[in-house]
């Protein structure tokens, strides 16, 4: 079923469709709340991921830290935080890699300091298509 919020560009509302697609990916990400799980993941990422019934594509996205891909595959950004934190990197690194076009940490930080991404022109896919 199409939703009115599907018209919001570059936005992934975490609804039932995404819940079902990303359940195991997000449960893996959430497991990193536990120190013993973080240690086990750090030891051998691939072996730890094999404990979760995730798709091959989801596992690759995690191993390669493809943040936007994780969202496309049902991941939620609040869950993805656990992984970027585990990597000891600031969230702006993840934000920059999801942004279109891609931005470095410094570029993302500079955009925010300059007032953030403007809402004008970023409200609606339909509006964008009509210029």
């Amino acid at each position, binding site marked *: 079923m199409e939703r009115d919020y599907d018209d919001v*560009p570059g936005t992934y509302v975490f609804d039932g469709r995404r819940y079902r697609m990303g359940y195991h990916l997000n449960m893996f990400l959430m497991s990193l*709340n536990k120190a013993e799980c973080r240690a086990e993941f750090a030891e051998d990422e691939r072996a730890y991921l094999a404990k979760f019934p995730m798709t091959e594509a989801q596992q690759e996205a995690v191993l390669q830290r493809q943040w936007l891909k994780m969202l496309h595959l049902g991941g939620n950004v609040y869950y993805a935080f*656990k992984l970027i934190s585990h990597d000891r990197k600031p969230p*702006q690194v993840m934000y920059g890699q999801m942004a279109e076009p891609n931005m470095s940490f410094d570029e993302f930080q500079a955009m925010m300091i300059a007032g953030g991404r403007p809402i004008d022109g970023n409200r609606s896919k339909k509006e964008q298509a009509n210029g």
Partner: protein
Amino acid sequence: MARIIAGMGTSHVPGLGAAMDNGKTQEAYWQPVFKGLEPLRSWHRDHVPDVTIIVYNDHATAIALDNYATFTLGVAEQFLPADEGWGRRNVPTVQGHPELAWHLVESLVMDEFDLAVSGDLDVDHGLTVPLSIAYDQPEIWPTRVIPLAVNVIQYPQPTSLRCFKLGQAIRRAVDAFPDDITVGIWGTGGLSHQLGGERVGVVNPEFDTQFLDNLVSDPMANTRLTHTDFFREAGCEGIEMIMWNVMRGALNDRVSEAYRFYHIPVSATAYGAIILENP
């Protein structure tokens, strides 16, 4: 009789807590934020309630997609700062108020708000950062706390109006609590921000200002905002602002604005804070 003395709305960005925990508040990036918080902290020094109901959301820490509820009330004696992926925050343990918490559970359920109840709840930055914002770095938190977690992550989140009505029901419950205590209520999260997707970093000062203005003088206007209004205008994670409606619903129809602060950016968000007093 118990009475609600005031409400506060504040964002709960984890970076704010980290800046305090790591002694970075005087760095150029953070200095204007903490300067803007000074009057807010000064107000809090003069208005410490016996108990504060903190309306917040858990971020896949103690509550997640395997089991979640729309509203969860914490009834424990105390709540530990959670390990949300980077170890527990080195802040005081949060002391609960089980008597008022159980009174709220009974009163709210009888009022047809069917809450989930938690007797074992580690609280994440959504709750501890607002405490740090209000009280800085004390040895113990000066107020007891009742956590009220709202699902703002998994669609469908509760409606804006439902949140406001929950606030009204909390007010009725507090008014009926026999002990002579003072109560504060905080709505946390927001303001406009989006943390995921190609549009990450979007903020909307016009929307935020209107929301804050409405909170003071036309709170029902904020109850008419739809889910898509928030996603579109305030960013995907801006829907956290519905939690401010719970706070507002618990206050008098007419309130006085004691303080307001707005600043872009704090991390990828528009930071906002407001203090509203019941006259």
